[in-house]
């Protein structure tokens, strides 16, 4: 999921300076998990903006409906078509993906050209939970995990080195860039050592091929999944969640 945090309110108000009618759009995907675009966050933002004398319309996307998946999110946007047409600005409480996908929809499909501004700062693709998350993958287009003991050096190493560790490893194997974080290459070394595969460490890994990260990247799915049938077919899996073992997070 894309981790995110809300921007300072001063920055948000700066973007909305001089805009009276504001449509606030939340997100039922990542932004709901990170409390930056769920129902509560949208309502609190609306209240804050009303205190600034703004007229607000809220578009709340329920859990499972991500702003960036336009086939689903558009159904909720369409319900507020009139408010969007009359608005001076749209405030997106999602990651930058949601801002742009919804922005394109409003511009191209609704025919409305108005400022669309972000409420959040996206912080990367993160996994883990339920409380602590960390960035482990940067979706670079050429996965290197098969060469690095299943730990991504491009993401977990502060310098993104393919052949570390650098000379900056701190005491207790912490990173030069941030003493709170582990040195990824010490972790890779130790994992390879435990698995008896240190010969892999000694082989030089070629520089990463960045040609597959030519931006902006595009993708076409030949047979798109139908959202409703996907949800229905997943129901039995969701039921197992109710009876599964309790996960306890490491401190």
């Amino acid at each position, binding site marked *: 999921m894309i981790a995110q945090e809300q921007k300072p309110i001063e920055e948000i108000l700066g973007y909305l300076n001089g805009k009276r009618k504001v449509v606030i759009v939340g997100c039922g995907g990542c932004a709901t998990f990170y409390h930056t675009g769920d129902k509560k966050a949208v309502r609190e933002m609306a209240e804050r903006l009303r205190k600034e004398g703004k007229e607000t319309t809220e578009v709340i996307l329920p859990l499972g409906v991500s702003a960036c998946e336009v086939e689903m999110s558009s159904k909720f946007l369409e319900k507020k078509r009139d408010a969007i047409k009359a608005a001076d600005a749209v405030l997106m409480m999602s990651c930058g993906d949601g801002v742009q996908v919804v922005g394109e929809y409003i511009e191209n499909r609704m025919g409305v050209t108005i400022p669309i501004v972000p409420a959040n700062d996206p912080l990367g693709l993160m996994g883990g939970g339920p409380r602590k998350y960390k960035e482990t993958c940067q979706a670079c287009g050429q996965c290197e995990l098969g060469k690095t003991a299943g730990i991504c050096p491009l993401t977990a190493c502060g*310098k993104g*080195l393919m052949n*570390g560790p650098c000379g900056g490893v701190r005491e207790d194997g912490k990173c030069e860039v941030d003493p709170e974080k582990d*040195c990824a290459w*010490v972790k890779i*070394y130790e994992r390879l050592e435990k698995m008896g595969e240190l010969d892999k*460490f*000694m082989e030089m890994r*070629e*520089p990463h091929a960045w040609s597959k990260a030519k931006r902006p990247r595009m993708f076409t799915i030949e047979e798109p999944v139908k959202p409703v049938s996907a949800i229905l077919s997943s129901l039995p899996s969701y039921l197992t969640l109710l009876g599964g073992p309790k996960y306890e997070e490491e401190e």
Partner: protein
Amino acid sequence: MGDEVYSQLMKELKEGKYVFTGELEPEKAGDVEEPIKAARELLGLVTACNVTDNPQSFAYVSSLAASYKIQAETGMECIYQLRCADRNRNALLSDILGAGVLGLKNILALTGDHVSLGDTPDAKPVYDLDSTTLIALIRKVVDEGKDLHGNEIHNPPKLHVGAAAAPGAAVLKAEIAKVKRKIKVGAEFIQTQVVYYTEVLDRFFKELGKVDVPILVGIFPAKTYAQADFFDKYVAGVDVPPDYLQQMKETKSIKDKEKRKEEVDRVNIEFFTGFLEHLKDTPAAGCHIMAVGYPRIIPELKKVME
């Protein structure tokens, strides 16, 4: 990697001569007068001098430009330090070819500190290559006349490439493996990070075992207490002995400038005499003296090694 020798540094190392190298630091300035002055003072005392490349990720005069000017104007052979930081593989190749054109003969291939440690922390961090792949690139350019993608290079430069090692690394086993990997891909000499403790040095040589490349051990006789304190506090993998630090601290209270200089020299000579005597019994091929702005100490230290 052939047996050809392009530089005085490599010549002396191959002949088995005990080699001293020095260090010069370009500044945040529009000239290189200071390192040129320092190079003149070091002539005859060291075989070659490293020219630092934006240490701690502070931007200074380019080490390529500085190395060229210093070598051309003083005759001091330069070891051009080249960091992967802030340059992608194209920029690195351009600088390597540029070094050849400018008559430089030695490159020390480094990864480099992260921009967050420097004075422009919002700069975009770049690490397209690392010290290992940079060594591999230089070898490929020199030995095969090709870049990493196999593109041909007409009239490739003749350069030697060295690597760094950190004997005091917090996780020594990983550091040792990395140093061996750098030797495997073609590093021709090693210069170590500063070492103050003989035990640290001994452990490093023991863990490394026998290797085929000459190793120059880094020492840092500090000109001031502040320099020694900086190394102790901020340089990864370097611990400065508390006794030495304390003695350096005490020199601060000496009012008379000349007497203070004498005392600083005395502290350094006393400390490093013991260290260098020990160094004689290690496999070190020489000593990299990082006495920036402190050339007067070098003849005294060299005496110990005679």
